[in-house]
C-alpha cells in the first residue's frame, strides 16, 4: 500500500541541518507535490523517502512498514530522476527490464510488463533504441516507463519536466496526471514550479528552509494560506501586500486602516487581533475591483495577454509595487489614477511579526471557490 508517514524527520549534512522535524502523512493513491524555492530541501526529502539518503533522526513508514533500515530496492518505490538517469549503454527495453531482471522475474512477465508500459507511454517504436537516440521528451517517457514496470507502491518524481521545453512540459504534465488517474498509485512529485503544483496535485506540501510551511489541497492553500510565505509563493503574479493598522473590531470582522481615508473590511476572527495592531493586508491581483473611490492606484505599465490584463503600479505616494488584474482588454495610461478596493471576503490578513495569517471569521470559512 502506498501510504507514507514521516515522523519528526530531520536531516543534517555535517553541521548543516537541511530538514527540521518533518511530519507528514500521505494517503494511498494521492498525487502529492512538494514545492518550494531552490535549496529548501525538496530533493533531499524525496531522496530520504527513496532511501538514497539516510536520515539523522525520525521515522519513515511506507504502507505501515518501518522502512528506515531498508534499502531503496526494498521500499517498493520507483524514482524518476531529473536527469532521467537512463543506463546509456542499454536499449530502452533493457533499461525497463533491468530492475525486473534483478528481482528475478520470469522472462514472460518481464516482457508483458514492458509491453504494457510501452503501450501506456507510447514508446513501443523506440524499444530497441539507445537513450542517446531519443529526444528529451522520449527519454522522459522511458524514465517513467522504467518506474512503471516495477509496479511500485509509490512513485517519486524529482523535477521530471525541468529539462523539457515549455510546450512539451505542458503536454507531459497532462500525461503524468492522466497516468496517475489510470494507475491510481501514490505519486510524490517535486517541483519549484507553482503552476505544476497547482495543476497536478491532490495535496501540496509547501517547503521552505527545510520546514513544512503548509499542507493542503491547491485551493485550500490558495484560499487560506497559513502564512506570508505560502501566500507569496502560490499564485502568479504574487499576492499584493498593503500595510495597515486595525482601526475597529466589530461582530462580523475587523476594519483595517491602510490610509487614504478608505478603510478595508476583513472577515477575520475578531478575537484574533486587537485595536491598533499593525497588519499586512494581502490581496491577490484578481481580487481588486475598480470603483469610484477607494485606494488611489497609479498605473505605470500593463501587460496584455489578450483575455486578461495585468496592470503594474503603486498606491499613490508609495513605492511598493501593486499588481491588479482585469479580464479582457484594459489600457490605462501611464500615471493614470484608478481607485481600487479588495473584493469582499477576499482579503487575507497577516501579522507582520510572526508572518502568520489571522484566522478567518468562522462563518466566512467556506467562501465559494473562485479558480485562479
Amino acid at each position, binding site marked *: 500500500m502506498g501510504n507514507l508517514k514521516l515522523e519528526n524527520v530531520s536531516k543534517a549534512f555535517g553541521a548543516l541541518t537541511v530538514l527540521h522535524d518533518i511530519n507528514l502523512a500521505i494517503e494511498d493513491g494521492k498525487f502529492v507535490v512538494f514545492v518550494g524555492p531552490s535549496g529548501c530541501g525538496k530533493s533531499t526529502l524525496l531522496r530520504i523517502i*527513496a*532511501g*538514497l539518503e539516510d536520515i539523522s533522526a525520525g521515522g519513515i513508514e511506507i504502507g505501515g512498514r518501518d522502512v528506515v533500515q531498508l*534499502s*531503496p*530496492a526494498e521500499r517498493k*518505490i*520507483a*524514482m524518476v*530522476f531529473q*536527469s532521467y*538517469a*537512463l*543506463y*546509456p*549503454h542499454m536499449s530502452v527495453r533493457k533499461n525497463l527490464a*533491468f*530492475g525486473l531482471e*534483478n*528481482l528475478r522475474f520470469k522472462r514472460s512477465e518481464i516482457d508483458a510488463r514492458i509491453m504494457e508500459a510501452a503501450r501506456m507511454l507510447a514508446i513501443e517504436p523506440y524499444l530497441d533504441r539507445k537513450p542517446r537516440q531519443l529526444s528529451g521528451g522520449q527519454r522522459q517517457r522511458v524514465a517513467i516507463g*522504467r518506474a512503471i514496470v*516495477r509496479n511500485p507502491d509509490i512513485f517519486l518524481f524529482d523535477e521530471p519536466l525541468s529539462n523539457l521545453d515549455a510546450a512539451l512540459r505542458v503536454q507531459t504534465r497532462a500525461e503524468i496526471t492522466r497516468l496517475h488517474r489510470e494507475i491510481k498509485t501514490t505519486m510524490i512529485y517535486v517541483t519549484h514550479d507553482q503552476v505544476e503544483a497547482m495543476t497536478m496535485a491532490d495535496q501540496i506540501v509547501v517547503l521552505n528552509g527545510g520546514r513544512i510551511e503548509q499542507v493542503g489541497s491547491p485551493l485550500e492553500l490558495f484560499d487560506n494560506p497559513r502564512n506570508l510565505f505560502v501566500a507569496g509563493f502560490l499564485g502568479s503574479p504574487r499576492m499584493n501586500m498593503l500595510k495597515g493598522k486595525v482601526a475597529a473590531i466589530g461582530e462580523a470582522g475587523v476594519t483595517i486602516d491602510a490610509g487614504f481615508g478608505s478603510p478595508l473590511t476583513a472577515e477575520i476572527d475578531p478575537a484574533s487581533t486587537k485595536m491598533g495592531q499593525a497588519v499586512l493586508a494581502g490581496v491577490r491581483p484578481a481580487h481588486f475591483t475598480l470603483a469610484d473611490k477607494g485606494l488611489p492606484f497609479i498605473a505605470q505599465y500593463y501587460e496584455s495577454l489578450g483575455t486578461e490584463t495585468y496592470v503594474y503600479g503603486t498606491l499613490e505616494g508609495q513605492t511598493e509595487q501593486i499588481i491588479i488584474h482585469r479580464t479582457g482588454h484594459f489600457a490605462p495610461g501611464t500615471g493614470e489614477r484608478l481607485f481600487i478596493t479588495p473584493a469582499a471576503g477576499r482579503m487575507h490578513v497577516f501579522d507582520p511579526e510572526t508572518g502568520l495569517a489571522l484566522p478567518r471569521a468562522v462563518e466566512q470559512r467556506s467562501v465559494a471557490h473562485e479558480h485562479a
Partner: protein
Amino acid sequence: MSTLRLPQIGERALDLVMGIVEAPINGLERLMGRKRMPYLFLAPNLVLFGIFTFLPIAIAVGYAFTGGTELFVSDRPFVGFDNFRQLLECEDYLRPGSCRESLFWTAIWNTLWFVAFNVTATLLVALVTALILNRAIAARGFFRAIFFYPVLLSPVVIGLIWKWFLDRNGLLNALLQMLGVPPEIFLLEVGWSRFFVVVVSVWFHMGFYTLILLAGLQAIPRDLYEAAAIDAASPRRTLLRITLPLLGPNLMVVLILLMIRSVQIFDEAWVLTNGGGPGTANSFIVQYIYQMAFGSDLRLFGLASAASVLMGLVLLALTLVQLRLGRKMES
C-alpha cells in the same frame, strides 16, 4: 608575499609571462599574417620530431637492408631481405632452438609470455585499485599519489631498488629469514625471476593506468548508481552491468596502451635481471635488438634494425587499433 596562495602565484606568473610574450607575438603576427602563425608554433615540435623520431625510423629501415659491421651507411653493403630471412628462418616457430636466430625467437616467446601476464596482472590490479579509490575513502588523494609515484621514477632506479630488495642478501630474504622461511635466490631462479619481472612492472606502471581508469569511473554519473540501487541491482550486478560496460572505452585504451608498452619491456628488466638472466629466461625483444647492435662488440646493426622494423610493424598495428578506438570514443 606570505598571503599569496600557490594558485595565485601561478596565476600571476602566467599573467607576467603573457605580458612579456604578447608584444613580440603581435609583431610576428603582423609580419607573417595570421594564417601562417599556427605553423610557426608547430615548427619547433615538428623539427624535433623530424630529427629525433622520424629520421631515425627512416635510417633504421635503411640499415635493415644492409649488412656488415660498419657504422656508416655508405660503407655498408646492400643485402636485400637477408636480415629478415635470417630472423624469420625457422623449422618450427614454437621451438626457438630450431630457428636460425634462436635468441630472437627466445626473446619473442619470452616477450609474448611477459605481455600476457603483465597485461592481465596490471589491468586487474589497476582496475581493483581504481574501484577502491573511487569509493569515498578517506585520504583518496594521498593513496592516488602513492600509487602514481613509481611512474615518476627512472626505470634504472626501479631495477636497482628491486634488485637490492630481491638479492641473495636482500631485504626480502632477510624478512623471510625472520619468519623462518629458507632464503631463495630469486633472481637466479627461472620461475621466480620471471615472476618478479612482472611484479616490478606492475608496481612500476599500475599508477598510470589506475589514474586513467579512475578518471573513467568518476565520469560515470552518480545517479546511474542510484537508479541501479532502486532497481535492486546487487553490488556484483552493478559492477558487471553498469560500471564495467560504462568503463569499457577506458578499459580498451588501457588494454592497448599496456600491450604496446609491454612489448617494449627492456630497461628495468635488464637492470633487474643482470641482462636478461638467468640464462635467457628474461631476454626480451628490445634487449635482443640492443645486444645485436651494441652488445659485446657484435655490431650487427642490420640484423638489429630488421628486428626493430618487425617490432615496429607490430606496434604500429596496435597503435592504429588504439587510435581507432580513441576516435570511436570521441564520437
